[in-house]
């Protein structure tokens, strides 16, 4: 069996919420051993973000937490206590990468900044992924994905275009984008370490990463002083484009006609009047929308998409969060996988998006229960005695359950 690229790499994962755990999920998919570290007093909020009244141990029963933390191990450590810090530094000796997405000042305030980590392991790689980075006047700002999106300028570009209202992406978009960048940073630092033997401190600002996703808008602003307009669902580079309601509840189809020829193909496929010469140029797009909209209103979206695909026209259903789990293409590619979990019935989870066709990354295990691997790591990896582990328990540096768990 071919080895995964990160086979043999060990990661100390201090991340929480979505951006960091998304990064470390990918690292785990690529073969790294990821040890997720949470404090009994400050656990990953995602465990308890969604209220589950009446559920025993809700922190171990969150499908949201599970989707982004599978294939990891769980170690509890209260880093605010000296014994927790000392244990963490013992662990760092055995790790290649430490990754964290605390607010910019937190790791240093804990006394665990990069310089301290290098005393435990000189060639350690630290990936810090604060919202605005470790330096600069905005470093004290607190940022989650939707905030990052606003501050990156992406939100200013999104909108229907007729009311001047900027619209956010329907999820915390800044998080997974920063997560992917953090993976790339960690791997590049591993390549550097292989070449030079040196560690690296990566200072990743989530806002900056997301701004790299709208580079052309910065070209327009800096070269010509242009403000990129909110364009709704249209696209200036194409002949026409839109999103059209289909038969059924909240069923929609996105269609791009990159050229006049593709509009003609759409017209033929949907039996529409093709000729537009009688339509004033400024009304042409509205007329295209009207004709397609009228034809699709009574048509099944899947049938419409397949008909347009056959005609060589880009068309895609606006798959909702249920339909995407039943999409025939994703099903044919084995994208959704069900993993057993000790507390929950199986559900469809996404497999790795990076399909290494030879090494074949595969999901192995559900997300860890809180502190599930405490003994394995403390005793097996760090060589702590039973008495030393018992002392950490007494001090509540480690625990099998969060202290005073609430919601969020």
């Amino acid at each position, binding site marked *: 069996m071919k080895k995964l*690229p990160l086979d043999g790499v060990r990661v100390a994962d201090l991340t929480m919420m979505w951006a960091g755990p998304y990064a470390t999920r990918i690292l785990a998919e690529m073969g790294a051993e990821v040890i997720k570290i949470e404090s009994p007093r400050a656990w990953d909020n995602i465990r308890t973000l969604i209220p589950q009244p009446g559920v025993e141990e809700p922190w171990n029963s969150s499908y*949201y937490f599970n989707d982004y933390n599978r294939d990891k191990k769980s170690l509890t450590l209260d880093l605010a206590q000296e014994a927790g810090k000392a244990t963490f530094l013992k662990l760092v000796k055995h790790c290649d990468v430490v990754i964290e997405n605390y607010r910019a000042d937190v790791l240093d305030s804990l006394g665990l900044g990069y310089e301290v980590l290098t005393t435990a392991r000189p060639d350690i790689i630290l990936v810090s992924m604060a919202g605005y980075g470790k330096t600069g006047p*905005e470093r004290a700002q607190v940022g989650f994905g939707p905030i990052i999106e606003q501050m990156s300028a992406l939100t200013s570009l999104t909108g*229907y275009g007729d009311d001047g209202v900027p619209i956010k992406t329907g999820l915390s978009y800044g998080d997974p984008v920063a997560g992917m960048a953090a993976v790339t940073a960690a791997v590049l630092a591993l390549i550097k370490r292989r070449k030079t033997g040196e560690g690296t401190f990566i200072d990743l600002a989530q806002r900056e990463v997301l701004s790299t*996703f709208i580079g052309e808008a910065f070209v327009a602003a*800096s070269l010509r002083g242009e403000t990129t307009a909110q364009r709704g669902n249209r696209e200036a580079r194409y002949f026409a484009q839109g999103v059209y309601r289909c038969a059924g509840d909240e069923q929609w189809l996105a269609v791009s006609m990159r050229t006049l020829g593709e509009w003609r193909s759409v017209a033929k496929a949907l039996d529409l009047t093709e000729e537009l010469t009688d339509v004033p140029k400024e009304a042409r797009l509205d007329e295209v929308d009207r004709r397609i909209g009228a034809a699709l209103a009574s048509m099944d979206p899947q049938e419409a998409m397949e008909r347009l695909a056959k005609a060589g026209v880009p068309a895609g259903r606006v798959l909702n969060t249920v339909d995407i789990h039943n999409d025939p293409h994703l099903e044919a590619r084995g994208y959704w996988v069900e993993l057993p979990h000790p507390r*929950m019935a199986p559900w469809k989870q996404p497999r790795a998006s990076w399909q290494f066709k030879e090494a074949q990354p595969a999901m192995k295990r559900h997300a860890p229960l809180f502190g599930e691997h405490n003994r394995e790591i403390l005793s097996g990896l760090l060589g702590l005695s039973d008495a030393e582990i018992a002392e950490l328990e007494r001090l509540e540096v480690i625990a099998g359950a969060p202290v005073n768990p609430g919601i969020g």
Partner: protein
Amino acid sequence: MHEPVLSGVRVLELGGSLPVAFAAKWLAGFGADVVRVDPDSETLTPDEQVYLLAGKRRVSASFAVESLALAADIVIEGDQLGSFLRRVNPAQLRRQKPSIVVVSITPYGQDGPYAANQATNITSFAMGGIMSLTGMPQREPLVTGGSQSQYLGGLNGAGAAVTAYLGSLIHGEGDWVDISIQECQAGMLELYGPGAAVSGVPSMRAGNHVRAQWAIYPCADGFAGVCALERQTPAFFSLLNDPELAEERFRDPLQRPQHDDELQAKCYAWFADHTKQEILDLGAQYKVPFGAVMTPADLLGNATLAERGFFDAVATPGGTAMIPGRPFLGLPWTPGELHSAGQDTEEVMGEWLEALS
């Protein structure tokens, strides 16, 4: 100054698509020798070309693509299954050169019923699930600004490329990585993806208001937002300075959703009274996650980004463009110059094909 991490690594960029160009851009910035085979018909806009092609050598050499590919360490390509123009055979390349990494970034991946379907940014965004969550509930689903599904494919491609390259260094063998832009999105649907998988009930688009303390509001000089978790909600409420917020129906996270309209009204009033900068300053002071809707022009003048040296200057025939540069600090980054189409054909043919022979 250390030499760039990917110094000496040869990357061939094939296909001309935005995802492929973005993936290769990151590798170029971190020191790789990126050669772009220019497509016969350019699909990037002029502004996208300035942003995505700076730092790359450019060849027009469709006749020698297979040889160039064999001379590369990493090939990033975007040709779809069944494409008449498919220029390399990744499986064959892998057999011929065991160390090589091939990354294919396409709308639907290398197999499955839609693999040959045409796609654009919006159709990929729609098929990835994020679009169903985006936009106002009373209007149609909305595509986000720029070309987000394409950039997502590109960043996944960059990450996969360097990961496979590291694997090649460690284990001696590369791989062929199949990146489907649809899958890149389907696996990042936050809580909404697993939620629907469990409940069978789809989440619907909610505009700018997930809930009152997770929303964007008009403010005194534009738009600003808040995303307060439960632990940050008391500090946010203290800023709103409204005695009613001490009542149990607002304090209890299980009761609060039933009074969301009322809470939103209070938020509208508070945000309208404050400027973006006032809101951001209060956020830093009280540890409340506040944001403000900034424009690219705002960021070009942003003090943090200036201090951190975020932007690269690129000389263009129309003047100097400022573009997002290194995605993070810690590794050497090389801002690149913009070359014209086919400018480096002779030079690259000489260097790369000579090395091959």
